[in-house]
């Protein structure tokens, strides 16, 4: 705590294994990649502002940019950011002095910078989905191979981190504390870590097979050698549909911290929150092939996966209910964290509703691989996960730095981002219905397509400007911000949440 009020040499933080130090490293790394990935998004939107080449010289550069954009923001922003929050707060919430395995924790973190370097220095072009046979026979190396190695290392890092969270929560919680008293944020890390342990090994195997296929020594996914590209799709989505829940569950957990606090009420139903997390992490495994309706699946297969997808909806809907019921009869202070959390709920609903429409089998013919899908999943990753995460960043800011961020700038950041998000991603849904495919460098000059691309690009620029405000706020406030009242930084009339830190001296 209070790293910036008690300055230490940087190597003391870098070589530390203490959970808040590792958390700080995760935090700074993830925010760095947020800005890098976001810059690529702005370049992509600028390119698509008009038909024809604008600022990017050729299609290959464009393809590499959207590949690295997606890979970066999913694996190098969202996941490390969740790890940052988990590292800071899970040990405190279960009242333990540190993570269960501090060295393992530091190792898991230090796998991220090299894999980030592999992904960025390689700059592969085969989309975040690395679809064979393109990724085997057509994607240029060494970029593709570097991407494969980068993802491989990130997978190991995720697994190590998950083991650590699971052991910390289940085995290191205070003996006076039953599992039913563990706060929902810690529950969210428990559920998402369990999902990771079950899901990631499948993709880890698929990545190795992809690599040996690229080397020409095997033909698992190469039809020319008798392999099946659809097998890769199944392996990939078996990991990455549940992975969607890995991304979203911690963000929901963060909202579970923010919303009761700023409503000045306890959460409406702790039990339904726990139940929904556990249910989602089981049912999440029954829907992966809804990404693959268009690969020529049979009616029966499609039906099974549609039912599996719809079965996941009640769990998510329970969270929304819980949030609304918590705010009901509260006395809500709309500081920045609360604004981000509530905006995130609204966009979470929109994303979910779009997802239900997507999952209806015949509608896949209209939406699959169009901008509808881009809009849909960005409402999750940006609208829900990034909103929850950024809200939580504002919330934990006094705890991390001992200083207060600039509230007015936080609100400007939220309002611009919310308006921008709605402009970009709702418009992209409509653009998809007009048939514009995703992952295209250029598009024919159809008037509706141009208009909607321009709305989306302007929205993206608004988000871009808001992120500059955010960066300025973070840098300035962490160095020069007013000292926070650490007992009650948001003036809510109660203690700040983390009493254990006060009682437990650093080890």
């Amino acid at each position, binding site marked *: 705590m209070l790293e910036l009020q008690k300055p230490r040499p940087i190597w003391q933080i870098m070589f530390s294994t203490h959970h808040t130090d590792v958390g700080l490293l995760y935090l700074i790394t993830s925010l760095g990649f947020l800005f890098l990935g976001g810059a690529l998004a702005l370049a992509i939107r600028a390119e698509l502002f008009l038909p024809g080449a604008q600022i990017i010289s050729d*299609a*290959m550069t464009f*393809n590499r940019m959207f590949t690295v954009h997606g890979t970066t923001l999913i694996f190098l922003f969202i996941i490390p950011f969740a790890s940052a929050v988990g590292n800071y707060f899970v040990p405190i919430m279960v009242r333990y002095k540190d993570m269960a395995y501090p060295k393992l924790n530091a190792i898991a973190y230090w796998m991220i910078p090299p894999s980030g370097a592999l992904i960025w220095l390689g700059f592969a*072009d*085969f*989309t975040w989905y690395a*679809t*064979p*046979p*393109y990724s085997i*026979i*057509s994607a240029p190396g060494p970029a593709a191979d570097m991407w494969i190695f980068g993802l491989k290392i990130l997978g190991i890092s995720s697994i190590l981190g998950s083991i650590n969270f699971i052991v910390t929560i289940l085995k290191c919680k205070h003996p006076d504390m039953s599992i039913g008293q563990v706060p929902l944020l810690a529950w969210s890390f428990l559920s998402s870590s369990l999902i990771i342990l079950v899901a990631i090994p499948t993709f880890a195997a698929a990545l190795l097979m992809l690599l040996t296929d690229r080397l020409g020594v095997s033909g698992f996914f190469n*039809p*020319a050698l008798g392999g*099946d*590209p*659809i097998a890769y799709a199944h392996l990939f989505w078996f990991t990455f549909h549940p992975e969607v829940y890995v991304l979203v569950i911690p963000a929901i957990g963060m909202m579970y911290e923010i919303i009761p606090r700023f409503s000045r009420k*306890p*959460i*409406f*139903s*702790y039990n*339904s929150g726990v139940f929904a997390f556990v249910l989602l992490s089981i049912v999440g495994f029954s829907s992966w092939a809804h990404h693959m309706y*268009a*690969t*020529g699946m049979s*009616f029966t297969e*499609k*039906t099974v996966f*549609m*039912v599996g997808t*719809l*079965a996941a*909806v*009640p769990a998510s*809907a*329970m969270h929304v*209910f819980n949030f609304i*019921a918590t705010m009901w009869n509260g006395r809500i202070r709309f500081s920045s964290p609360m604004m981000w959390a509530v905006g995130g709920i609204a966009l979470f609903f929109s994303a979910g509703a779009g997802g*239900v429409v997507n*999952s*209806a*089998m*015949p509608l*896949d*013919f*209209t939406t*699959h*691989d*169009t901008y509808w899908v881009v809009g849909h999943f960005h409402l999750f990753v940006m609208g829900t996960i990034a909103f929850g995460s950024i809200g939580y960043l504002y919330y934990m800011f006094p705890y991390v730095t001992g200083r207060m961020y600039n509230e007015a700038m936080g609100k400007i950041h939220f309002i611009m981002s919310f308006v921008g998000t709605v402009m970009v991603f709702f418009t992209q849904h409509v653009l998809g219905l*007009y*048939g514009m*495919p*995703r*992952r*295209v*460098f*250029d*598009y*024919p000059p159809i008037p509706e397509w141009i208009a909607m691309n321009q709305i989306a690009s302007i929205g993206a620029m608004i988000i871009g400007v808001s992120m500059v405000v955010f960066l300025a706020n973070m840098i300035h406030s962490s160095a020069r911000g007013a000292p926070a009242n650490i007992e009650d930084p948001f003036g809510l009339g109660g203690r700040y949440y983390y009493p254990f830190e006060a009682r437990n001296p650093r080890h």
Partner: protein
Amino acid sequence: MGGHSNWPEWVYVGIVIALMTWVGAEAWEAERLIEHVPEDAEVIKVVGQQWFWTFEHEDGTTEIGELHVEVGKAYKFEITATDVNHSFNIHDYVVLLDAIPGRVNTVWFAPTEPGVHDIQCREYCGLIHYNMRGTLYVEEPSA
């Protein structure tokens, strides 16, 4: 917590489940209708490769980049690819299916009025994916 009743949440969950059941049932019924290929549909073999479409009609004529069909007939596309994955898409007729090497996927449609429509590739397939386009010409019946 505690002290409040839970029945609003149960009612709410019940409504959500009912809605999802309705979505599933409607989708299933629509899918059932469009999955059923008419028996007299003409077969058109579609081959995707980097970065153009080839069409072969039942009578053996081959077209590249454009496809001519007639109003009043049903057509069944047998779609495959020779190099990497593509996705055959006539958005105006809501025809979409992946073209995957080593596999033949089928989808059918029946054009209703004469016109010109875009054919495009909807699955990322490399350098010129964005311009892997073709044209569908729907013509008056010849006979």
